[in-house]
């Protein structure tokens, strides 16, 4: 006999338990996963190559398509990388607005993944509610930037246009609204006995595993490490606002959800401070000459931000030309999406595979690019 007879299953790319065009090949014995292998590549659009063939400014329209649910982080990282290489200063107000935009995106993303646990566990009221509330934020985005999902708002040198006080007032109202509704999510999802049963002690990540795989973000913070780029390497004006980094000591699916829930509160807190403290002034540094013929100085830089899933960075190289010489996107879910699946999924129950992928924040487009 010798050989283990296991059942081959395909979790994705076209599977209700999988977000994005990403596939996990699993081998199952009864209902226990014995072997797992990630199979990315279905969403590969060759961004890194495409960027080398486009102008510095043209790329703005391209990069945000790297990740659907949180596009703003790409714009910010790209712009900041360009600014770092060029040595550009960004107007104070633009920095505050960027923080606001990033935090709004974080709320939208966390809402979606908090409600999204309803997908793998079958509580479909969760995602529906979350989408309704996310829509409120998208409305504000629309007012600020003119677009709902792909904003192309943060550009090298600042942001595209100023935010009016009216919009800020609307934003405050939306924040109040969401804050009022968060306890409902807590009741519906976090205190739901069946959700607790399905997520507690499920998809456990130990600190050693997290370190050796290089996992960052909420999955890491749930193991007790309070590593958050916003605190450890403050960019923009994160050192001027007050917020906490919630951590817990045991990284299971439930605690990761719990952290997302807590982070929504923190983000709301940050946005409120931004609205309060934001100075007036211009929001965009004018670029020298024609933007399409803009040459960035020779050099390279790695810029990282804290995305909703963890450390997100751009490594960019300029050879002094009108186009980037090399762009590398460090997707936040790269470690858990490849090595994590290979090492972490075996031993999990078949029922928990979707929960594992969902709460670890495996985002296919970041892996493929």
């Amino acid at each position, binding site marked *: 006999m010798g050989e283990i*007879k*296991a*059942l*081959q*299953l*395909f*979790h*994705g*790319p*076209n*599977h209700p338990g*999988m977000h994005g065009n990403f*596939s996990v*090949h699993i*081998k199952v*014995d*009864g*209902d*226990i996963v014995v072997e797992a292998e990630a*199979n990315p590549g279905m969403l590969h659009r060759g961004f890194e190559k495409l960027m080398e063939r486009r102008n510095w400014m043209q790329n703005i329209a391209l990069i945000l398509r790297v990740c659907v649910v949180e596009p703003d982080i790409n714009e910010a990282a790209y712009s900041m990388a360009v600014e770092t290489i060029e040595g550009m200063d960004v107007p104070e107000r633009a920095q505050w607005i960027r923080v606001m935009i990033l935090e709004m995106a974080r709320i939208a993303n966390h809402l979606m993944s908090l409600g999204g646990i309803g997908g793998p566990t079958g509580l479909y009221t969760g995602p529906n509610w979350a989408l309704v509330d996310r829509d409120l934020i998208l409305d504000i985005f629309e007012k600020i930037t003119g677009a709902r999902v792909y904003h192309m708002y943060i550009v090298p040198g600042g942001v595209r246009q100023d935010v009016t006080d009216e919009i800020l007032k609307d934003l405050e109202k939306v924040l109040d609204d969401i804050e009022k509704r968060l306890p409902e999510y807590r009741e519906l999802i976090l205190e739901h006995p069946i959700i607790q049963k399905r997520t507690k002690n499920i998809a456990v990540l130990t600190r050693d595993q997290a370190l050796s795989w290089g996992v960052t973000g909420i999955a890491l913070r749930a193991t007790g490490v309070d590593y958050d780029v916003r605190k450890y390497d403050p960019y923009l004006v994160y050192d001027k606002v007050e917020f906490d980094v919630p951590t817990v000591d045991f990284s299971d699916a439930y605690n990761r959800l719990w952290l997302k829930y807590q982070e929504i509160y923190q983000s709301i807190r940050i946005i409120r401070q931004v609205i309060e403290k934001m100075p007036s002034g211009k929001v965009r540094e004018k670029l020298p000459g024609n933007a399409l013929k803009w040459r960035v100085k020779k050099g390279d830089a790695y810029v990282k931000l804290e995305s909703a899933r963890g450390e997100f960075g751009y490594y960019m190289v300029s050879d002094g030309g009108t186009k980037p010489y090399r762009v590398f996107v460090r997707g936040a879910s790269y470690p858990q999406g490849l090595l994590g699946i290979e090492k972490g999924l075996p031993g999990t129950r078949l029922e928990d595979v979707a929960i594992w992928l969902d709460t670890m924040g495996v985002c296919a487009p970041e892996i493929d690019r």
Partner: protein
Amino acid sequence: MAFTIGSLIYSGSIFSVIIYLLTRFSVKLGSIFTTVLFGLYVYAIYILKDSVSISFIHLPGAYNLTFKADLFNWPFLMIGTIVLFVSALFSIHGLKSFKSAASFNFLSVLVGTSVLGVFGANDLLTLFIFWELMTWASFFLVSMGKKEARSAALFFLFMSMISAYLMIYGMFLVYNKVGSFSLDVIANNWGDLSDIRGRLFVLFVLAGLIKGGVWPVHVWLRTTHGNAPNIFSSVLSGILIKFGSFIVYLFVVFFPAFYLTTKGVSSVGAEKLSHPILAYIGAISIMIGTLSAIRQNDFKKLIAFSSVSHAGYIVLGIAFGTGSAILGGLSHIWVHALTAAGMFLSAAAVYYVTGTTNMDEMGGLVRKMPITFTTYLVAIISVAGIPPLAGFVSKWLIYQALIAKGNYLLTFIAFFGSVGSFLYVFRPLATVFLGQLPHKYDSVKEVPWSMQLSMLIVTILTIVFGVFPSFMLKPIIRIEEALSIPTVKIEGYSNIYTMLTQLDMFLVAIIFGIGFIFVTILFFLLAKSTKVEQYEQYTAGEIVQEISTTPEIYHYSKNYYRSFERVIEWAPSLEEYYRIAARHISRFYDILDGIIFKSGIPMYVWFITITILVLLLIRW
């Protein structure tokens, strides 16, 4: 020509030698001859239906073997011979690659005569002699099976020995008291045996339970059924474990009721016949059998445990003691004989083409073996007690009796076994017959015609007895009426009345048929569908060539009920305890063995000695 049991047995023992020689000459010819002989048995028993025939075989010396065929044992004889015939028919091609086919046929004729001898015995000694004949014949038959068959056969022999000694002891008790072994005499004097009746009851019923494979003495079934030659398994499970049920029937129903009837009691009340402890033992057997069957990975072992569960139903029905319960229990003997034969024969057919009974090595065989699949499907529908097949009738009668008495625990367990049987019977259906067909079986074909025919006979009988249950129930109702047990009323071929409600199996079948035909017509009226190859599947959007995903690993068969097993894995296994006990005992024997004997046969002598010692301890 008037047949008697005696003449049939005579002819059987003469023909056994002829068949042995014939089989040496040609396997097929020998098997055909066996089939003809058993066919003759079926015919003979059938025409004995309404008569009472008493016959003798004269032995050298003072004693005669006496036989009787009357309405009290006719149902047993009938179903026994039917199963014998069917499995003999199956063996015409089934024995082809069998090494010792001659001995196999010789022994199965002996088993055949022993079936007649046990069910047709008119006295306990005759019963015992044929009982032992069966034990020895099956011992050799079982040891012809798989690799582990020898130790399994030894274990079988050991259990049979215990049951035999229990019986011998019981027989001497009876003889001391009434001076005869005759069943009639015992039945007539049953009331006067009050001082030894309890002991008698325990001895014989325990012997019956061992043979019948009822908890807690079911442990031999798994190894024996699992390792016996495939063709013989159907006889073993279909008939031989019914010997146990027969003994239980004799001592629980026949003797007391016959005695009361002859005393002129107009209606034998249920209380007088009910044996609650026995009924609960049957119930436990149902649960243990069901739960263990769910965990099996071997096709035949799974069926073996289902036999444990169904032996439980039989004992439960008989021991519960009301008219409809006894009717249910006795008719379940028919039902299970047929379904067990059907299941084991289809397992044998599968083994014939694949050479394995491990369920996780197979799959998709329905494409190659439609007849075998149909046999199995009909058998499991009957096993699960789903209308309109025979299994539903007997189980329904048992439920009715239990509910009418308001016995919740037993009702609950009876339903437990029934619903649980969905789980275990579906596992082979899904893993062996449906799903992906592995490449190594691409070239297999359906089994030869004799096997198909014998499986078809079983299938048709199961359906007929289900749709027209009166064929099965009338003979048993006749027994109950003769014993003055209040029983259910049956009208026409299919309409059954009990205290609680009525049931018309034919109507159920007709309505089911109408629904089925209506849907089928509707199906064909709608647009035609496209047929695709077995590997053209939903694979979650992955493009998978057949090469990268062989059918072997794209078929869910291993650990089919892993999650359910997780729920019950805390449960202690009786077999494990027995094994621990056995290990301790055998260590003890090893020490003795080392001192006194060297090897082999002494073990058996020890069994005898120890058993006799145990018996003596009971006596004094």
